[in-house]
């Protein structure tokens, strides 16, 4: 049934349809209405879950790790400082191999205070071992929550997943969402049955010391599971397509890239705007395409490698900055294209709630086309739409 709702409500409905058993939360803008909607659905009896209002995000994640050991399907949501406060337990959830699913309404981290959207909070957590999936629209948020449980709980994966929605831009925008039937979701997503559940009858110890002689093997296993997750993500999406008739292009969706002179790699809601702009420029005979970076962890290095063979000029839009040499997404793309002769340029923008406009993306494509025809990259990193009086924007 088509309903009009925000991405936050779509995420909450995802948790309901997935039959999450335990929801432990602490409110933070712009995630709060995910938690509120879950609380409301539990209160009304529409969602059969234990709802726990915690004293912090750190506690929320800790509670879910415990609940997951017992065999509960677990859900929470956060943003920004909440995600940062969780940092320690994010890593613990990975080491404990707990298949927790958590939407993040991506936002800045202060100071100074800024409650608006960008990718800095989730990009900062890129190395903790969670799978990270960026969503373009509200429908994709609901659908990805369902796919995320299927992948996370796969015995060969057993890793937590972040489902990333752009703060405010998706979290507070009302759009059409096809809410699947419970029966269809039940067919798609079997109940969570961990191989080694903890119970009073079967007491066991988890998370004790791993000595130096095994730690490397322990970490290597997590690496292997991340690698297996690549295939599992594609399988989960294929099965989703069969059951619900929707899919999102796998690890990285290629939009009009086949004969493109230049492509822009972009994650999240801005990918939709970029597709719209690509259509417009194509009508003018300008051959541009969009590579929507959907899965950031594990990183689709092979897919990027193939894209680089097809298209010479590759721009990457980062909605955060990592104070190295370019943004995090740019560096991953550059690494995947190592040894190939691609023209590459990084665009930093959409920070702290600044709009990524149609005009911004038009300018980026025109800039990339200039690079494509001249073969010269004027600079590696460009911060877009700066108020520097240069008049370029």
């Amino acid at each position, binding site marked *: 049934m*088509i309903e*009009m709702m925000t991405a936050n409500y779509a995420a909450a409905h995802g948790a309901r349809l997935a039959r999450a058993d335990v929801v432990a939360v602490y409110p933070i803008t712009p995630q709060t209405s995910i938690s509120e909607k879950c609380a409301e659905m539990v209160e009304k009896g529409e969602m059969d879950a234990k709802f726990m209002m915690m004293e912090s995000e750190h506690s929320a994640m800790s509670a879910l790790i415990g609940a997951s050991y017992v065999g509960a399907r677990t859900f929470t949501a956060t943003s920004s400082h909440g995600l940062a406060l969780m940092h320690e337990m994010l890593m613990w959830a990975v080491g404990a191999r707990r298949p927790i699913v958590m939407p993040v309404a991506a936002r800045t981290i202060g100071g100074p205070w800024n*409650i*608006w*959207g960008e990718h800095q909070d989730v990009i900062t957590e890129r190395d903790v071992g969670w799978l990270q999936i960026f969503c*373009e*629209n509200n429908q994709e948020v609901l659908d990805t929550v369902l796919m995320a449980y299927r992948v996370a709980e796969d015995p060969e994966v057993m890793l937590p997943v972040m489902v990333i929605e*752009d703060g*405010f*831009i*998706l979290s*507070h*925008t*009302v*759009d*059409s969402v096809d809410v699947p039937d419970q029966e269809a979701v039940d067919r798609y997503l079997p109940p969570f049955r961990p191989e080694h559940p903890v119970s009073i009858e079967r007491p066991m110890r988890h998370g004790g010391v791993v000595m130096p002689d095994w730690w490397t093997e322990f970490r290597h296993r997590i690496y292997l599971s991340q690698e297996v997750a690549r295939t599992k993500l594609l399988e989960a999406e294929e099965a989703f397509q069969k059951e619900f008739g929707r899919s999102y292009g796998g690890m990285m969706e290629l939009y009009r890239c086949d004969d493109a002179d230049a492509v822009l790699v972009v994650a999240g*809601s*801005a990918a*939709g*705007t970029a*597709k*719209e702009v690509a259509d417009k420029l194509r009508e003018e005979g300008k051959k541009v395409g969009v590579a929507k970076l959907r899965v950031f962890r594990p990183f689709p290095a092979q897919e990027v490698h193939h894209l680089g063979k097809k298209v010479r000029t590759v721009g990457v839009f980062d909605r955060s900055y990592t104070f190295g040499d370019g943004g995090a997404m740019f560096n991953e793309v550059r690494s995947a294209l190592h040894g190939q002769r691609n023209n590459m340029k990084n665009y930093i923008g959409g920070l702290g*709630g600044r*709009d*990524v*406009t*149609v005009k911004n993306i038009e300018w980026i494509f025109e800039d990339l086309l200039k690079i494509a025809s001249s073969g010269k990259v004027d600079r590696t990193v460009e911060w877009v739409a700066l108020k520097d009086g240069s008049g370029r924007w």
Partner: protein
Amino acid sequence: MLEVRFHGRGGQGAVVASEILAKAAVREGKYASAFPFFGVERRGAPVMAFCRIDNRPIRIHAGIYDPDHVVVLDPALMGMIDVTEGQKEDGTLLINTSHTREELNIPNGRRTVLVDATAIALRRGLGSATAPIVNTAILGAFARACPEVGIDSILESIKDSVPAKREQNLAAAQDAYKQLEGL
């Protein structure tokens, strides 16, 4: 694609109005999205809300800078900001006011529709004299002033969306729609 911008103050229902309009368009088989200007909302502060309507899924996730139609819930805002900023020339400006076009000093050339949504809302018991809730009345007027979304789907959408005083809200929308008959 049709783009609509709402100007109001926190508490008047501009954000809900944009959502009701989007839901009404979807009822008619179209696609729509609605979003507020993401400020730090406070009661009484100027707010903006936006709605996009199209015959295919909405992919743009950027702000609206050159709207077709502009809806003003509080005419006092017109002294503070240029509500027609960026508006397309052939779009309609719909204003909640008890004043005339001359009194509001609206330049010629812009198709402008005036409706006293505050009086209608108060007659229907929506909000108070100092804080009337005018969003449903102005949406009734919108259905008459702008051909893109019909009154029936707006009424159905109001029925689904308002948390309280459902009958009064529906009546307010119908009052405004009737008042502008022959437009």
